[in-house]
């Protein structure tokens, strides 16, 4: 051994530099770990990440106009939407050609439904004129301008062409504007007319009511969890079953049960009338409004609050409170200064669970919410399954997701996410 080898890189047993050898073995270990989780990773990617990303992408994707009417969209660039005059024959000719091809591929009614979201009446315009334009020949039947206007007078309406031009972009902010009660117009983003504004209100209501539900869950769950954590095992297991039993019951059954309980001819009102607390003609209205939604959802989400709280409280050593009391603390000081701070991670975990579940709730508000108790998710469901406006539904969903992430971030800043424990 000479001094030179001493100062050179350290070698492993096989003669390669130790650093390199270490890196290789670390890499191998990482790869093995990756291989072990690969099935799960792939599953999550395929069944969760890709569908969500593709759904989110719909909120801006708008290729349908330029794909269905490629020539028209090019011609529309040359037309001045502000001029107040109809486009010229070149555009009508391009449009006729596009339409004949689109009708052949049965794409024109699809475009009609898309544009109907922006301008009422375009759905039937495309459907009706489709039947007649089908018979036109894109070469021999020129000129088209008058013929098309005769087929449907909508083609002679400047406003219709303005709408098509406005929504011809392949990536649009239109759905997001709609999602916040605005609309994309030739003059830029504008507010919706007052009598159609509803979504912002629903977002606000969803957040506000979710907060109330989370709050009432905390109030109800805290004493129950405390009791569960401090009773002897045998009794607390019995009580635990009572918490879990509704948890295992179908959501719909529980919601419908609340309906039976709360309606005006329901169990609670009948009892109150029978006891004489309430007059027969002044029965309480406690369902089909916000109150009904809060009661039913608090009940349904309560186990999600109790379980994390309980498991955190179980780990709080009773010796601390005993020590505090032995040093002369009152019951209240012991609870507030010693016990409560240790139970905060459980409250945090429960609150996040309940709040995030609550803002996505839809079937319970639909059944017991009436008109004042519905959530934004009810509108998302409407646009997914009834109006088929998936772009708007995706935009609403994206905003909801962003709000959750934002609140999560705020929570991390204020309370700290390390301070959350599920047990």
């Amino acid at each position, binding site marked *: 051994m000479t001094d030179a080898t001493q100062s050179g890189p350290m070698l492993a047993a096989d003669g390669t530099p130790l650093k390199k050898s270490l890196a290789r073995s670390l890499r191998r270990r990482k790869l093995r770990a990756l291989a072990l989780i690969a099935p799960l990773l792939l599953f999550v990617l395929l069944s969760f990440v890709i569908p969500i990303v593709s759904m989110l992408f719909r909120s801006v994707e708008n290729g349908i106009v330029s794909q269905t009417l490629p020539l028209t969209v090019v011609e529309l660039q040359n037309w001045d939407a502000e001029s107040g005059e109809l486009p010229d024959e070149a555009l009508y000719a391009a449009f006729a050609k596009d339409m004949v091809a689109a009708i052949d591929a049965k794409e024109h009614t699809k475009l009609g439904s898309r544009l109907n979201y922006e301008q*009422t009446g375009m759905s039937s315009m495309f459907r009706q004129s489709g039947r007649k334009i089908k018979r036109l020949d894109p070469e021999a039947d020129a000129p088209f301008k008058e013929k098309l206007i005769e087929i449907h007078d909508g083609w002679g309406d400047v406003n219709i062409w303005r709408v098509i031009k406005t929504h011809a972009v392949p990536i649009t902010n239109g759905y997001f504007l709609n999602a916040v009660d605005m609309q994309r117009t030739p003059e830029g983003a504008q507010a919706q007319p007052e009598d159609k504004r509803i979504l912002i209100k629903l977002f606000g209501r969803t957040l506000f009511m979710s907060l109330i539900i989370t709050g009432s869950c905390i109030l109800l769950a805290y004493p129950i969890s405390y009791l569960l954590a401090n009773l002897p095992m045998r009794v607390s297991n019995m009580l635990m079953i009572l918490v879990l039993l509704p948890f295992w019951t179908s959501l719909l059954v529980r919601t419908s049960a609340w309906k039976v309980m709360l*309606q005006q001819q329901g169990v609670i009102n009948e009892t109150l009338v029978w006891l004489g607390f309430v007059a027969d003609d002044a029965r309480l209205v406690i369902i089909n409004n916000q109150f009904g939604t809060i009661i039913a959802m608090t009940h349904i989400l309560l186990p999600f609050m109790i379980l994390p709280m309980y498991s955190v409280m179980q780990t709080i050593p009773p010796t601390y409170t005993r020590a505090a009391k032995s040093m002369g603390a009152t019951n209240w000081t012991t609870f507030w200064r010693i016990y409560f701070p240790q139970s905060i991670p459980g409250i945090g975990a429960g609150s996040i669970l309940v709040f995030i579940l609550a803002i996505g709730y839809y079937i319970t508000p639909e059944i017991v919410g009436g*008109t004042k108790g519905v959530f934004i998710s009810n509108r998302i469901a409407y646009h997914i399954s009834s109006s*088929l406006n998936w772009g708007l539904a995706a935009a609403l969903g994206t905003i909801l997701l962003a709000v959750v992430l934002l609140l999560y971030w705020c929570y991390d800043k204020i309370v700290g996410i390390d301070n959350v424990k599920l047990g």
Partner: protein
Amino acid sequence: MKITKTTLMASAIVAVAGAASAEEMTIVSWGGAYSKSQLKAYHEPYSEKTGVTILNDDSSAEAVAKLRAMNEAGNVTWDVVDVVAADAIRLCDEGLALEIDFDTQLAPAPDGTSASDDFGDLLVSDCFIPQIVYSTTFGYRTDLVGDNPPTEICAVFDLENYPGKRSLEKRPINNMEWALLCDGVAKDDVYDVLATPEGQDQALAKLDTIKDSVVWWSAGADTPQLLADGEVIMGSTYNGRLFSVIEEQKQPVAMLWDAQVFDLDGWIIPAGLSEERQQRALDYIMFATDTQRLADQAKYISYGPARASSAPLVGQHADLGIDMAPHMPTDPENAKNTFLYNYEFWADYRDDIDAKFQAWLAK
């Protein structure tokens, strides 16, 4: 040896599974009493005749969204789907349903009348084969209206003579028409008025007069339940639901047929099926929508057959033994004043008016 045996068995199972799926079709419908009536009237006789096994899927309520998703995924697992006409029009527009040639792909009437004449005006879309005419109409509690049972639709808006809650569907369709009708708009002008913003405001203003007394429903079973519980004095729902409250459950409820809105329910065949499956679906449709089969369905549920030639064949209820004809929405006694759901209008205006309606509801 052991391996060969297992392989043999496996391939046998695959072969059996393959053969089974070749003789299987999935039919989507609404579930409940309605699916049962189809099972008795269509599925059982068809399976008996052809040996095809029919699987039921109760997904009609989400059929439009699911069909679109299946179509995008390129894997349509449904063979025949039962939808309301408005959904069928939407599916046809979206290219998700197969266009039907009514005269060659449907059975003619027994007297030789072509299918397109036999169905007549009820063929509202190129993709849609109507099955039944149902109506959305009102039922009322006979014990809560006193000596003055309502005879006309405007009783719904008359809180003075008929105080109490009423249930209406949580959507603008039908409610807006009834509101205008009771606000003095002539029946023929209703849709012209409703197409204008002023007309929409007028309808909402009329609904506003009873807003505090309305329970809004979103499932067809809500109103029958609310009537049975005495939660509401009157409420709108599908006539078949009211029939079962009145005749099967014997509740003190009666029908108010005035200004009932006819709507259609029927079949579509999804676009994009393999040749073989499409052929089988068409064969089923040919069988299930002939004159006798449509009349048979009325034995099990009080919805009117969509073919003119089926009407005289409507008999008695299979279990109750009562004549079904007087319970059909199309019976002349019941159909003195009717609307036909205006498909074209609502396809255009639904999203626009729904936004206004929901904003009004939330106010």
